[in-house]
């Protein structure tokens, strides 16, 4: 490989050709501060618009300062990273950025993990010499995402995520000069845009210009209401990441502490969305077999490949961008909604209470789940199946707010009957997990044989698009997997063109799947964090005595006592849904609810 030699701060450096000054400096232990720059190593994408100018350095012979994130090393270059000129420039530019950023740190939800705060601290900003007029944008509140452009520093990371990675195309810079901001087409509210609520923009925002909708207070209100029974369901990915906010290493499983914390908060029952994941497999697996059976018998009307429908960001994406393919989506509801439907029917009946007095709170790694819970088809007479959905970071905040010492909590188990799950339900939280869980059950239902090797390694991994063929005793079932909507777009384009080789496709909207969801503690594009979370889920799967959804005794009991057959009439009523062509709806522009 061709290399170049240069000098950075009097140190001799040799790097491969094409390396930026920023990376070259890092290789010899020189940390240049950055703000807009973001490297998504495993997604092979860098956000480096060269816009913030914080990473500038001096290069001998060059007239002006150079952005180190965007300037390639050249043979013989002499770079200085902390001359008075450089330091003054960084400080002045930082003061400019701060001069147009509300000084609300103490009440900002990014307080303590804000990248702008860190750099302001590192650069020793003690006064802002260039105070002046500040931007005044209206705050845009959608069911999932809140956009406060007054805090925006125009790093454009959200645009990169929304356009280059997710290919959703909801966010773009608008206006000029001081009035420039990231907004939607025609500056509509988020709710009237093509946003899928995946929340990846929120997960990379270095400040708090984009944040998740905060619904902690309704949870506290419900817990304080003696007339209500309040139950929790926790998604699998939450337990791998919640600990991060309490100082645990990435990927540490804190299931037991989480359950204890929820009990301390006052939840009457703490259940597991994994139970509903097992239920989803029963329905979705059965549906897949039904579709496959028809398909193998030559039925041309059946929609193959069947696409998973657990991920509300993905469902929105299909409804908005590919509504003509919405019938390829499994009609099975997502685990969150299956849980809500069962809780408010089956469990309410067990308790002998009206569904209106049962409050279902979901704890999700996801922002889109808030939107999903608010979809009108997921309610009965105006009473939603899932009343409130909060995300992982919100739960961490609630735990702190209630002065619960999370680290010292003992482990405890989920309640029954909706808290028991198999390993299959656990791996729902990572890319490839849903389809692997489905295979475990579908294989046995299809072949009527016992599956001995339950680990489908070929379905795992972090590659953006993966495929595998699973042998169902002579019937090769072709499976495609994508995580990240940009990757999903490639698979669905194939479906659209009629060239898709697959029978089933699993899609999760977020890179890494739910473990990388927009509601998780921020991973800032560090994929090793996601890998650790995935490993934790697979470990939990191995630790479970039961690893196939249909073996879950509480699932069996549910069907026996209440639901009847998978995909039967009652199951259909409670556990399946339909999809809407939202190209139209986005066009009509629905005004959003302005309350927070």
């Amino acid at each position, binding site marked *: 490989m061709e290399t170049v030699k240069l000098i950075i701060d009097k140190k001799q450096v040799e790097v491969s050709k094409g390396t930026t000054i920023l990376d070259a400096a890092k290789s010899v232990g020189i940390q240049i501060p950055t703000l807009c720059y973001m490297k998504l190593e495993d997604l092979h994408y860098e956000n480096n618009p*060269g816009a913030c100018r914080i990473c500038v350095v001096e290069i001998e012979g060059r007239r002006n300062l150079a*952005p180190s994130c965007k300037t390639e090393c050249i043979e013989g270059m002499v770079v200085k990273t902390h001359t008075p000129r450089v330091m*003054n*420039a960084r400080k002045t530019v930082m003061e400019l950025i701060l*001069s147009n950023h509300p000084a609300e740190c103490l009440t900002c939800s990014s307080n303590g993990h804000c990248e702008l705060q860190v750099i302001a601290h590192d650069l020793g900003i003690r006064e802002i010499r260039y105070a002046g007029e500040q931007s005044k944008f209206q705050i845009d509140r959608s069911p999932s995402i809140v956009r406060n452009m007054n805090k925006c520093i125009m790093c454009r990371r959200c645009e990169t995520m929304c356009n280059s990675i997710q290919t959703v195309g909801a966010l773009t810079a608008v206006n000029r*000069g001081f009035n420039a901001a990231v907004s939607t087409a025609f500056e509509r509210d988020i709710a009237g845009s093509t946003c899928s609520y995946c929340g990846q923009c929120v997960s990379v925002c270095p400040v708090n210009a984009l944040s998740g909708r905060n619904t902690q207070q309704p949870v506290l209100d419900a817990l304080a209401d003696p007339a209500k029974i309040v139950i929790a369901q926790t998604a699998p990915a939450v337990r791998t990441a919640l600990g991060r906010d309490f100082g645990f290493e990435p990927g540490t499983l804190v299931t037991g502490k989480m359950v204890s914390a929820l009990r301390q908060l006052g939840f009457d029952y703490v259940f597991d969305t994994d139970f509903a994941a097992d239920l989803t497999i029963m329905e979705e697996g059965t549906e897949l077999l039904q579709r496959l059976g028809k398909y193998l018998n030559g039925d041309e009307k059946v929609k193959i490949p069947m696409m998973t429908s657990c991920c509300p960001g993905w469902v929105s994406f299909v409804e908005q961008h590919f509504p003509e393919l919405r019938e390829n989506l499994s009609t099975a509801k997502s685990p969150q909604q299956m849980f809500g439907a069962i809780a408010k029917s089956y469990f309410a009946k067990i308790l002998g209470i009206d569904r209106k007095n049962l409050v279902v709170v979901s704890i999700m790694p996801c922002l889109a789940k808030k939107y999903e819970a608010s979809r009108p088809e997921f309610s009965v007479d105006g009473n939603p199946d899932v009343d409130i959905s909060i995300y992982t970071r919100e739960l961490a905040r609630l735990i702190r707010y209630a002065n619960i010492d999370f680290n010292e909590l003992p482990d405890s188990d989920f309640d029954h009957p909706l808290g028991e799950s198999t390993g299959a339900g656990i791996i729902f939280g990572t890319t490839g997990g849903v389809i692997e869980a489905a295979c475990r059950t579908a294989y046995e239902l299809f072949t009527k044989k016992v599956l001995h090797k339950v680990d489908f390694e070929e379905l795992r991994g972090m590659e953006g698009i993966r495929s595998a063929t699973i042998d169902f005793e002579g019937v090769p079932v072709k499976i495609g997997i994508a995580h990240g909507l940009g990757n999903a777009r490639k698979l669905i384009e194939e479906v659209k063109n009629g060239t898709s080789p697959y029978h089933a496709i699993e899609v999760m909207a977020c890179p890494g799947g739910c473990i990388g969801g927009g509601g998780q503690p921020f991973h800032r594009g560090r994929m090793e964090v996601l890998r650790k979370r995935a490993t934790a889920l697979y470990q939990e799967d191995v630790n479970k005595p039961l690893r196939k959804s249909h073996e879950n005794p509480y699932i069996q009991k549910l069907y026996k006592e209440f639901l009847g057959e998978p995909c039967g009439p009652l199951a259909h009523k409670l556990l399946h849904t339909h999809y809407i062509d939202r190209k139209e709806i986005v066009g009509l522009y629905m005004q959003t609810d302005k309350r927070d």
Partner: protein
Amino acid sequence: MAQYTNYILVCGGTGCRASQSEKIIGNLKAAVEKNGLQKNVQVIRTGCFGFCEKGPVVKMIPDNTFYVQVQPGDADELVKEHLVKGRKVERLLYVNPETNEQILDSKHIDFYKKQLRVALRNCGFINPENIDEYIARDGYVALGKAITEMTPEEVIKEIMDSGLRGRGGGGFPTGLKWQITRKVQASQKYVVCNADEGDPGAFMDRSILEGDPHSIVEAMAINGYCTGANKGLVYIRAEYPLAVERLMIAIKQAKEYGLLGDNIFGSGFSFDIEIRYGAGAFVCGEETALIHSMEGLRGEATVKPPFPSEQGYKGYPTNVNNVETYANIPVILLKGAKWFSSIGTEKSKGTKVFALAGKVNNVGLIEVPMGTTLREVIFGIGGGIKDGKKFKAVQTGGPSGGCLTEKHLDLPIDYDNLLAAGSMMGSGGMIVMDENDCMVAMAKFYLDFTVEESCGKCAPCRIGNKRLHEILQKITSGNGTEDDLDRLRNLAMVIKDTALCGLGQTSPNPVLSTMDNFYDEYLAHVHDHRCPSHQCRELTQYYINPEKCKGCTLCARVCPVHAITGDRKVPHVIDLQVCIRCGTCMDKCKFDAVYVH
């Protein structure tokens, strides 16, 4: 076919059209017919003559009589007197303001005498909507020569040897740019003409496109031949409807003549041109922003490298040159690099077109050899300062440039001298200021523009320019402190040092150059809360000297806010609370009784 003996050239540039030159053309045609001369006399609508101050301009060929400030009603007289009776219409001739002599012929008018027209060679001479007239003046000969007699390398060498540098502002050697684009291997390449002229007051590109569009078409084809591109794109402001119209006609005619399209001159070289419209964003004159805008993306600059020559439009190598640069190409090939490089200074060859504006007598479009001094331009061609006032400064390079002063008047104009003096060539805007202009207010004026035109991508330009403007606002309203001056300079230096593109890097130039040259004016605003030029309204108060006031009541009657009271024949008084400091009273007072403090 008619054999004309006489031609009447009427300026059809945007400025003269605004002064009814279309109506003049109509009336002249009618008058020609009325007098039965239609077989001998042709009325031709040309491009800009440049002498906008005296427009609309009508020129008689073959005797070159130059009529100025012609009205539509003058058409009959012009035809009857000049063409039928052979007598000059003396009242429409140009009068030399110094000698009061009538001048018959444009060649003897100072404004033209000192110019050398290379890029503007055809403007005002030919009908831009007729390809035959362009061809009659050696049009498309250079293209033919390049394609049939020269290799691309030879053409590029000729351009390199000529020493031509980019006329859009940067001054990058044109031949070298072509060579870089040529050397990059790619399946597709583009040549682009940057016609997104955005400097306030500059209109050289518009005038060339309006007056001589074929020269651009020809030069782009030559560029395509050299760089290996078969597609040309003209990025032009949609607010230039006349230029767009004439360019479209030129492209259509060139296609009909086989000078554009497939297999030009049977050489196997094919070239086509398309037009792309700009929405008038100043930043889109920056080549990366221009390319993004053409791609349908947001018009904002990206960090270079990669340069467009390597990775431009849709990722393909793209050679971007400015209109005026292109206008020089055919002449260089016809007359040779040696001829071209004999004009100008050591490092800046050829001529430069300037849009002369501001407080100068002869406002207009001029072209002079590089190396001409500012004094020659402003006082020789420009005819000196209006109303006999004193020269104070000249802003070159538009909002990105700086202001130059008395001490720079004998500076030969070229790229490097202007840069060294703290300004720049830019696209050729030249705004002259007199003793009544406040330099702090001037800097603020230009900042107004850059704040408006910043794309908002990088922090120093987006926020920094806004803050510069706010500080200037504070100073011009009398609230500035010496500390503000330090902050102003530091911020200006940092923006220059850190902004992403040329717009941001040069936007503090007006501040820095006025601080360097007119620091005393800044100090007067800050220390004495006084604007020496009485331009800053918040620092100016109008008074009436009771000893001089005759009580004629004129000031009271013209005051738009009724701030002046007083009885007839009794000295009047201005109510400072009401006064909006418009200065009308001072302008109107016949007794010099109104003064400012």
